């Protein structure tokens, strides 16, 4: 029997597979046995109640999607009174995700929702920082660290920092949040993109820009996971473009301690369950006793180590 369990950023999980924030809601329980997951990550909430951005909210590509939702939120009371109890009964640890307009608000919200039924809080720092003209907190190491510090000062729960991939040097941000006390980094949120309809000469999304997610982003995020894992000692949770068990192995080899699956839940509700089985089979086949051994186990031929790794040379 393969030991699939992992302990990531203060949270013990039966296996390293969980949904990405915003990729599941109550409806999935009608189809999927949530009890099998490593953890259940909830959609981001904000302190206030929000309706989100104007539709259309999704554009489709060959193997990617561009969503712009705008974090509709029913606020922290709804989270504690409805969402958490709904998901807590399935067994796996429940991870809340929060976002706010300022670092202090992140701290206050973390405090407000610190509840024994929540195993960790993910900080969605890809969202706009009101003090920096709407640039994401996660684009600036100082702002990112401030958010984590504000949260760590206000809660005893583990804090995971969910990074934005829309940066030049993601390792720098990972180090900044590690120094600020983050218990894990989640690499990463969606890549900022845009879609235009040539016929109407208008944007395809109500919000003009949105987040690119799905299989097409895998090579980019896999590289970022590897960069983060080389930069920090806290666990890295891979997120972006994962759809199969094979993808999960790739992320773990690159340095991820666990993974999150997002968009693929929309297409195949069975994706998470099937990939847990695939990973178990892979370990059996490869004679790997504990899945955790895979983390960072990528084999680099000796002469590859010195080559150009931080720039594209085509």
């Amino acid at each position, binding site marked *: 029997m393969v030991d699939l369990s992992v302990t990531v950023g203060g949270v013990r999980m039966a296996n390293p597979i969980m949904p990405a924030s915003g990729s599941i809601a109550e409806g999935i329980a009608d189809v999927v046995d949530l009890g099998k997951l490593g953890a259940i990550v909830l959609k981001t909430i904000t302190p206030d109640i929000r309706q989100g951005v104007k539709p259309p909210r999704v554009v489709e590509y*060959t193997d990617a999607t561009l969503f712009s939702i705008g974090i509709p939120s029913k606020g922290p009371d709804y989270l504690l009174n409805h969402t958490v109890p709904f998901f807590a009964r399935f067994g796996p640890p429940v991870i809340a995700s929060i976002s706010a307009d300022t670092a202090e608000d992140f701290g206050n919200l973390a405090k407000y929702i610190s509840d024994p039924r929540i195993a960790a809080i993910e900080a969605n720092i890809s969202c706009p920082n009101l003090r920096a003209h709407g640039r994401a907190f996660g684009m600036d190491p100082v702002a990112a660290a401030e958010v984590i510090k504000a949260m760590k000062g206000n809660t005893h729960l583990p804090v995971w920092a969910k990074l934005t991939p829309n940066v030049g040097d993601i390792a720098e941000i990972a180090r900044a949040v590690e120094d600020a006390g983050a218990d894990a980094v989640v690499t990463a949120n969606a890549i900022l993109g845009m879609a235009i309809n040539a016929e109407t000469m208008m944007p395809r999304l109500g919000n003009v820009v949105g987040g690119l997610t799905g299989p097409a982003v895998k090579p980019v995020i896999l590289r970022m996971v590897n960069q983060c894992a080389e930069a920090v000692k806290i666990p890295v949770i891979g997120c972006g473009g994962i759809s199969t068990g094979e993808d999960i192995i790739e992320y773990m080899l690159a340095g991820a301690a666990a993974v999150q699956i997002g968009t693929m839940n929309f297409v195949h509700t069975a994706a998470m369950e099937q990939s847990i089985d695939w990973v178990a089979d892979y370990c059996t086949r490869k004679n790997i006793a504990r899945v955790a051994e895979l983390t960072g186990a990528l084999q680099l031929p000796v002469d590859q180590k010195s080559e150009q790794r931080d720039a594209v040379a085509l």
Partner: protein
Amino acid sequence: MTLTATAKVEGPSGCFPRAENRCLVASNEPMNSEYRLMVVNAPETGLSAYAGQFFHLLCPATATEQPFLRRPMSIYRIDRENGQLGFLYKVTGKGTCALASLAPGDELNATGPLGVGFSIPEGTRHVAMIARGVGLATLAPLARMATVNGAKITAILSARAPEFLMSRDELEAAGAAVIEVNDVAGNSSPQDVTNRLRDIHEKTPIDFMATCGSNRLLSLTRELCSEWNIPGQVAVEAFMGCGLGMCFACVVPVRDAEGKEEMKRVCYDGPVFGVNEVTTW
């Protein structure tokens, strides 16, 4: 009390009322130059569907189309005796072109049944449904739902031209009185349809209305419902990501009794809403 979710009455009793149903295509034939009817053999969970619900269909990759997301399709026919489901669809773009390529014996992966469908209030005696275009596919199973509940049903079918009218047989078999109108004949304007309905209402009072597929039909339904002080429902469409209430892509503004607007998910809170709840779509 209202009679809703037939699924809860007749559906399977397991804990997973919805599933990725692996169906087998029984037939997939053109109905006219634009529409096709696909009939599939479906597992138990799929057959628990009721009028107004939909399935989220995985469209196969073909040499020219590789649709990534699923496509929502209303349930058009629920044939529990033969274990079959039917989808009536318009070949529009990538996804529906890909669906059209399916041949008998091919697999169709259909997640569902999804959403909240129609609910005919208990005691309803006479249902009037008004459908146009794709809306027909959505309303057709309502006829049987009404009949089963002991209500009479009148169906007004509207189309651009007579050749695009479909489903008279399907509806009549389900016990509906069918009236066809079309733009070529010039009897399909909202005014004409309203007049027809008034005549019908005069003879046999209508106490529930349902519509789908056209903003103009929604307006006239809303007006008649408020004039006659009866409930009415509409099935709404929206671009979908997940179909399961998870992505919030399919939202429409929905107004509650106090007029307060909230964005609601067509796939999860709908696709059927009260005619007064929906503002624009």
